[in-house]
């Protein structure tokens, strides 16, 4: 059963199927929110619970012809941004070892030496929020331009432009690291 089919059944009254949605997205969204807010697990769980509650309340507004994952990621993104605003944090991407291994594509794209991997992730935290969000969704969540456009509500063309600019900025930060 696809996500959209499950949502259709929930919209038609089979509320118990919402459990399947929670089951499918709990881990994915936990890690996404963790990367966004960079807070302890308890805080992340609170935000995650809000995401699922909000998603359930508004599920009738979801158009089943569209992709559900983008819709729920949008809610997770909004809730994370609300949390960040509330506690006045800056989005900080975690420097977990696992993430280094998972994101070779980013390392390749910014053309750095293997030993500079750690610096890449430190440099991401120096980027402006709007660039960080795009980098996070593209490289960490493997979302397409179309999906990022839906999640962040920005024109599809802008996604590519923002990624390009983010990479350029990262290269500059890395060069500065090398110089110093």
């Amino acid at each position, binding site marked *: 059963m696809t996500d959209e089919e499950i949502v259709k059944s929930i919209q038609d009254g089979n509320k118990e199927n919402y459990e399947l949605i929670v089951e499918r997205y709990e881990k994915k969204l936990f890690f996404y929110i963790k990367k966004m807010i960079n807070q302890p697990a308890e805080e992340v769980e609170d935000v995650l*619970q809000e995401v699922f509650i909000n998603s359930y309340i*508004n599920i*009738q507004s979801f158009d089943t012809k569209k992709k559900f994952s983008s819709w729920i990621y949008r809610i997770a993104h909004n809730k994370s941004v609300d949390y960040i605003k509330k506690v006045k944090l800056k989005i900080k991407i975690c420097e977990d070892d696992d993430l280094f291994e998972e994101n070779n594509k980013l390392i390749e794209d910014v053309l750095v030496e293997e030993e500079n991997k750690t610096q890449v992730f430190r440099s991401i935290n120096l980027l402006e929020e709007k660039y960080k969000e795009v980098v996070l969704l593209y490289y960490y969540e493997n979302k397409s331009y179309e999906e990022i456009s839906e999640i962040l509500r920005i024109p599809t063309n802008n996604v590519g432009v923002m990624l390009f600019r983010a990479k350029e900025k990262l290269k500059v930060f890395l060069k500065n690291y090398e110089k110093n």
Partner: protein
Amino acid sequence: MKKTKLEKQIMEKIENKEIKMKSKWWFFAKTTSLRGIILLNILLCSIILSATVYLVSLKTPLELFSYGNIGMEIFFNDFPYIWLISAVVLIISGTILLSKVGDNYRKTTKTVLAINIVFIIIATLIFGLLKNSFNLESWLGRF
């Protein structure tokens, strides 16, 4: 499969009706109201633009420029700025509202602005054709 803590919490809240989904009609009413406001915005803007053109031709005809500095002074003093400013405000607000409808967020601001302006031009042309039925000239005579 064993339920996680979060699954249990969420499903309990749903079963106990602590959280309820909003009805389809609530969202339908919300979308329809937004579209209605945009339509009203376009209509109002077209009326104001027609009124601006009419008032410019009535109060500040371009012939005033042939009278030199005095003519220019009269032109700029009597120009219906408030109508023009109102039209600009409505164009901006209409563009913001239009960008919130459907998949318009995918479009750039310039594209949404262009779409809004096209709608306004069409509405203004229709209004221009029907202005005699609306008796615009006698109504604007009061201003």
